């Protein structure tokens, strides 16, 4: 008997129009915990290394977590897995909203989307009723409009997963949006669905319940988690001021990347801060992902730029389209965030691309773009930025090249410009200064997604709170290792975060609850897991499952061609120094990075030279099915 999950995968083949339900067994949960882990396991079987991302052989998996639909707080996170057209490798995206909750309450844990449709379609799911319906009326609509139209048809209790025009236009950083404003932003998942001509999925009211193994114990543990959250100092601030409340902490510690990673702090940083959105009256309400009482999302309004009423901006957006491009116009930030929301664009990649455009222009490149935009793309120029967003979403003029992402764009324009294209492996770098925050640097280099935070974010490295300093002390042997600008203990910090993130993602819990705030620890996590599923576990066994997932993801990418050379960071990060507000210059050389990587691989028990898990390690983790692949790379 499988508890807490439905034990069902809904398969949809858009080529043949067939849908079918696959029942899976409890041991999949025991080994792979939930959505992210199970989807990685399925990806291994269903997506060959030779498959092109924009092809009918790519598979998109959308899954709710093991705790989704239970009364565990903040456990409505949904995982979307696919081969990315930006990195040409396995990619996992994470998103909130209600879609995962509703999917689970309709009787499915995850949906696997195969093939490609000839005509624009959408999937409708309500309990046992599954239909592939024509989406001609919705194709071309922005996400918000499409959501409203679809709910007028299917009822206000339905919910949507949608792509916007950017996904339809195959922009390499087009997003997948759940419940309108919750965005699985990175890796171009929107483009994959756009190629498949799938506008999205509508999920109905749902009549199922989640049956817990031990409802009484689960209920009391869930209430404990609720109380812990309400008393966590970081989460209290995040609830009130959103994720952009991290901005000033980063500015103070010179880890706030501004002007395309040329600066690490900024006099106008406060214009991009969560507290400022409250102080200046932009915030009109808060929004939460399913089950989340922190509700860190911002409902904001401005009367400028034609009047905007939207959800956002988050921290990454606030910096990517704020300080990164020298933009202190907060009203414009709200407008830009709304455009990214409704067109379906990843704001981090968008900001990275625009920052590169501005620096390139400053250095004498892309001169023709001024004619196209009607205005020079100078630092902080909002008009140019707004026009660039349109040109990218709709692939107009130079926007067509920019829509391909930095890796392609810089090589096309002039390889010299790749020096300030802050991307590696095809993904633009997330919004933290990794030359100073070294745990972040190591995590970014190893991240299957690319130089990015939402997979293993070592927020504790900052040591802003007592709890974070305690954690660093536990992981590295000394609380003195907390704080940025340090090298000691980074491999240990990264390893723990990778493992707990894998478990956290897979149960559907929001990573801020146990790695940015510290309301749920490994003990509570394992107690909740056991009470939910009936699978006996301990904190270390659960973390071992996390290690299993991380190692499987590594093997997937090894099979796809990843080598140690890919465990890297953008050129600017490894070749230029960055100066802090105290006047100290930090350099993160390849040598330093490699030394951290060596230590990390040793700790992991992987082959240090190749960065490949060893046969012994794979057997230990019950990943024997990946053995022959590992052996291929180790001989």
């Amino acid at each position, binding site marked *: 008997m499988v508890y807490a999950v439905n034990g069902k995968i809904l398969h949809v083949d858009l080529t043949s129009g067939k849908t079918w339900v696959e029942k899976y067994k409890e041991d999949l949960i025991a080994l792979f915990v939930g959505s992210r882990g199970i989807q990685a396991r399925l990806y291994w079987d269903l997506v060959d290394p030779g498959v092109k991302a924009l092809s009918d052989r790519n598979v998109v998996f959308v899954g709710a977590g093991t705790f989704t639909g239970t009364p565990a707080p903040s456990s409505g996170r949904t995982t979307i897995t696919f081969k990315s057209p930006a990195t040409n490798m396995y990619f996992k995206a994470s998103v909130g909203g209600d879609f995962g909750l509703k999917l689970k309450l309709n009787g499915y844990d995850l949906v696997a989307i195969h093939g490609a449709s000839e005509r624009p379609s959408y999937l409708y799911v309500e309990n046992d009723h599954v239909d592939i319906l024509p989406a001609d009326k919705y194709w071309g609509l922005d996400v918000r409009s499409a959501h409203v139209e679809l709910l007028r048809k299917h009822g206000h209790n339905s919910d949507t997963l949608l792509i916007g025009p950017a996904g339809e236009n195959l922009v390499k950083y087009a997003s997948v949006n759940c419940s309108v404003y919750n965005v699985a932003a990175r890796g171009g998942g929107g483009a994959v669905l756009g190629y498949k001509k799938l506008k999205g999925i509508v999920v109905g009211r749902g009549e199922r319940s989640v049956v817990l193994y031990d409802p009484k114990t689960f209920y009391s543990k869930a209430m404990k988690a609720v109380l812990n959250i309400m008393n966590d*100092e*970081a*989460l*209290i*601030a*995040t609830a*009130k*001021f*959103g*994720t*952009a*409340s*991290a*901005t*000033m*902490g980063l*500015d*103070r510690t010179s880890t706030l990347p501004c002007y395309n990673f040329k600066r690490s702090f900024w*006099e*106008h*940083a*406060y*214009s991009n*801060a*969560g*507290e*400022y959105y*409250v*102080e*200046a009256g932009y915030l009109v309400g808060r929004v939460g992902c399913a089950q989340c009482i922190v509700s*860190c999302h911002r409902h904001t309004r401005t009367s400028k730029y034609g009047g905007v009423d939207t959800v956002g901006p*988050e*921290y*990454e957006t606030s910096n990517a389209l704020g300080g990164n491009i020298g933009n202190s116009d907060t009203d414009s930030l709200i407008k830009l965030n709304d455009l990214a929301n409704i067109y379906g664009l990843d704001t981090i990649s968008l900001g990275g691309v625009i920052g590169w455009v501005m620096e390139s222009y400053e250095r004498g490149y892309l001169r023709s773009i001024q004619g196209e935009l009607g205005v020079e793309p100078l630092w902080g120029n909002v008009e140019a930025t707004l026009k660039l967003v349109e040109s990218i979403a709709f692939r107009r003029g130079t926007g067509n090249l920019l829509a391909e992402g930095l890796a392609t764009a810089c090589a096309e324009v002039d390889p010299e410009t790749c020096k300030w294209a802050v991307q590696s492996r095809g993904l633009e770098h*997330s919004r*933290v200064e990794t030359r100073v925050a070294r745990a972040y640097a190591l995590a970014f280099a190893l991240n299957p997604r690319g130089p990015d*935070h*939402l997979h293993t*974010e070592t*927020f504790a490295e900052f040591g*802003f709170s007592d709890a974070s300093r305690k954690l660093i002390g536990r992981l590295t042997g000394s609380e003195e290792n907390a704080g940025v600008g340090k090298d000691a203990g980074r491999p240990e910090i990264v390893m723990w975060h990778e493992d707990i993130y894998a478990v956290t993602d897979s149960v559907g819990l929001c990573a*801020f609850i146990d790695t*940015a*705030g510290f309301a749920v620890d490994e003990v509570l996590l394992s107690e909740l897991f056991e009470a939910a599923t009936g699978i006996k576990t301990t904190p270390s066994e659960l973390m071992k499952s996390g290690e299993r997932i991380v190692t499987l993801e590594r093997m997937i990418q090894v099979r796809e061609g990843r080598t140690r050379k890919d465990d890297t960071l953008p050129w600017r990060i490894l070749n230029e120094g960055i100066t802090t*507000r105290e006047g100290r210059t930090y350099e993160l050389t390849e040598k330093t990075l490699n030394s951290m990587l060596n230590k990390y691989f040793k700790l992991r028990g992987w082959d240090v030279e190749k960065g490949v898990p060893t046969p012994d390690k794979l057997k230990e983790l019950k990943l024997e099915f990946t053995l022959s692949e590992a052996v291929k790379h180790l001989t």
Partner: protein
Amino acid sequence: MPLVRVTILSDKLAKLLQGNEFRVQVEPGTYSIAELIDLIPTQVHSIKSIIDKMGEAVFIAVNGRVRYNLDEKIEVMDDIRVTVFEVGAGG
């Protein structure tokens, strides 16, 4: 006379100071941020003493810009807005 309006955005600080909003009228002139803060009337502890105690965990914004150096001089001709808060989490 210009008004200095102080908003405390941190629950912890508001509790210590027993209030979230404070105001004081000052003569026009040049003040350091530390001096301005000292002029704020509070019931229990002085804002400055708490800020000193909490150190790097506290941030002060004056008219929409965060200032790290409390000795920085400000010209006070019109009303001023001061916001005091702590760092949050995000990524």
